[in-house]
């Protein structure tokens, strides 16, 4: 059995302790999976998790380069490859989910980025920002070429910010509570109902409006399911 694989675990621990957060590779993967599910189920685009993505990529490349040195047919190597494939799937699906949302909400995503205060973290990674800008430009060019340029001069612009629907933060979501929360205000649905508060016990599951719990998703206190 190759030593390249056996010493792998301790390797990672050392790498990580040099960074600000000490996170084991297992915790890192758990973080990625959380981000994946949250992104899949939240109605709006969440803050990007570039650090997680980068660390996972690093882990995968490191592991893959180790595997290069192992001879074919090694049982251990095949187990490692399966794990790599699984992690890669989650990673791709996560990034894809974000790209889909960017395609869906591009004018709003860019608007938010424009109005972002200095020092406030961006929702988009640099690559995603480039993608969004290009998508915007392409859509505009497309609309212009197929239709707008044939319109009367005063009708040649389309306000994409108004034309593309905004994410609906009033959507309901399913969630599981990771850290107990008290006094979450539930707004009434109809005039004859009254608002009330609920406590979210750790481990309990709920169906409620995304708007109510959006800050708890970003803080990591609840997990969308």
């Amino acid at each position: 059995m190759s030593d390249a694989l056996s010493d792998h675990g301790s390797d990672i621990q050392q790498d990580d302790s040099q960074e600000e957060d000490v996170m084991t590779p297992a915790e890192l993967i758990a973080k990625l999976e959380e981000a994946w599910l949250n992104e899949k189920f939240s109605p709006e685009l969440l803050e990007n998790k570039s650090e997680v993505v980068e660390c996972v990529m690093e882990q995968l490349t490191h592991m893959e380069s180790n595997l290069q040195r192992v001879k074919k047919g090694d049982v251990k190597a095949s187990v490692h490859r399966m794990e790599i494939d699984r992690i890669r799937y989650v990673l791709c699906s996560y990034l894809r989910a974000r790209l889909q949302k960017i395609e869906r909400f591009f004018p709003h995503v860019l608007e938010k980025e424009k109005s972002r205060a200095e020092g406030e973290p961006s929702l988009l990674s640099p690559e995603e920002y480039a993608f969004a800008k290009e998508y915007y430009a392409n859509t505009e060019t497309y609309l212009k070429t197929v239709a707008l340029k044939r319109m009367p001069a005063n009708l040649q612009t389309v306000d994409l910010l108004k034309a593309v629907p905004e994410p609906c933060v009033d959507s309901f979501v399913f969630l599981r509570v990771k850290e107990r929360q008290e006094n979450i205000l539930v707004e009434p649905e109809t005039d004859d109902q009254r608002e009330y508060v609920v406590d979210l016990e750790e481990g309990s599951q709920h169906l409620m409006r995304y708007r109510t719990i959006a800050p708890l998703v970003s803080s990591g206190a609840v997990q969308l399911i």
Partner: protein
Amino acid sequence: MDPSEVEFLAEKEVVKIIPNFSLDKVYLIGGDLGPFNPGLPVDVPVWLALNLKQRQKCRIVPPDWMDVEKLEEMRELERKENTFTPVPSPYYMELTKLLLNHASDNIPKADEIRTLVKDIWDTRIAKLRLSADSFITQQEAHAKLDNLTLMEINTIRTFLLDSLNCMYKLRSNLQPGSSKGQFTDY
């Protein structure tokens, strides 16, 4: 979410296997596994258990709850109660399918187990639809859904969430002032 993605998550659950080979500890990114010794039970994630099983390198020990008597009790309880009873595993449906499809020779009374789990599932899904209906008709703003599994939620998710969305929009018609400007000009 696609059901196969829920299954993907279920494959992370841990199951006991009895290997017929020996191998040192494997240091996976997600944690250490093994060591593996012939005849000695060891915990592994389901995805690995199924792979080893397919390569005839192990025998899978079914989880405790995958037992006709226990499941019969659960089925009775599920039918008796109006609420959702606690499930033996958050992935009971997925694990049943996976283990029975790939390792039925390691699970006694596999067919009976399949039927029982399906019965429990059907009862729970019927309850889920009842609660969805009352959630809509009562126009509730919050529901507690303990004990529901991801796969169960998943069968109704898009439908229920889309319906709630439509209802929300139709309800905001009642307060005309609250909606956006009179006519949107593009």
